[in-house]
């Protein structure tokens, strides 16, 4: 039906005109709107070129961001019993294989991980 509406009565052909031109004309009449929608625009078909120096800077920034997030997460979950960073239990002095033995003459291990050097921290235990 749509094709029939576009298919005009075939008028006399121009010299050398393709006699099947209506096939193409009808086909493009159907999809012209989407095809000419990008006229007078600049479609971006860019690609990311490898830049050794820029990659180095990006990697450095990513490393810093990761470290910052880990510090924040550690600080947030410092005494959190349910924290995944504490692996579900705060084993103060028990079966800790020498790590984080809070409460056993190891005051240093009880410091908060951020704000310690600046003194901007409160000791909560």
């Amino acid at each position, binding site marked *: 039906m749509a094709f029939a509406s576009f298919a005009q009565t075939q008028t006399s*052909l*121009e010299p*050398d*005109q*393709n*006699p*099947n*031109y*209506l096939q*193409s*004309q009808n086909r*493009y*009449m159907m*999809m*012209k709107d989407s*095809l*000419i929608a*990008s*006229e007078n625009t600049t479609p971006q078909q860019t*690609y990311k*070129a*490898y830049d*050794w120096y820029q990659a180095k800077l990006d990697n450095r920034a990513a490393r810093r961001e990761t470290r910052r997030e880990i510090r924040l997460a550690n600080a947030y979950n410092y005494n959190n019993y349910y924290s995944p960073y504490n692996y579900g239990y705060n084993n103060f002095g028990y079966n800790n294989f020498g790590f984080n033995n809070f409460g056993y003459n190891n005051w240093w291990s009880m410091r908060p991980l951020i704000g310690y050097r600046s003194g901007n921290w409160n000791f909560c235990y």
Partner: protein
Amino acid sequence: MKLNSFIVVLLLVATIATTSCSNRKVTRVDPSEQIDLSGSWNNTDSRMVSDQLINQILGEKWLTDHVTAKGKKPVVIVGMVVNKSHEHIEAETFVKDLERACLLSTKIGLVQSGKLREELRAEKADQQSNASQSTMKKFGLEHGADYILQGSINSIVDAYKKRKAVTYQVNLELTNLESNEIVWIGDKKISKYIKN
């Protein structure tokens, strides 16, 4: 005295450190200047390929054969150039140089292809219902191409420790659309030795 010299040295170091952080300097260079930084495909390679292929396509026998047989200049459409190399290479940079050289020589005619041709036809379709009858362009009057230009880009990489040898091979071929006969093959090989 010692403290003063220490402060001066400290200031110098601080100045160098702060200025070296924002040390980016950009200068315009001649596009024909050869600048090799990483050893990857670059502007110089593209230009070498286009120079070589322009000389080949305009100077070989297929052109005179066509003009003798048909009595008019050949019409060429640019087909696909496949990048099979290990790098991102945009063939359009040297294919456009080639097209431009063909047009400037007036020995070869070109017709539009691909997405640009789709857009042309869509615009023509739009004119059928929007443009005045005297300015409306008709379907079925395009120039049919006599030949299609297709090609490929290949590379061979041989690397050991800090050394690398890369060879690029760009092939373009022209095929008669009616008879499927290949009438011209152009090629350009570029070899590089990179030592880190």
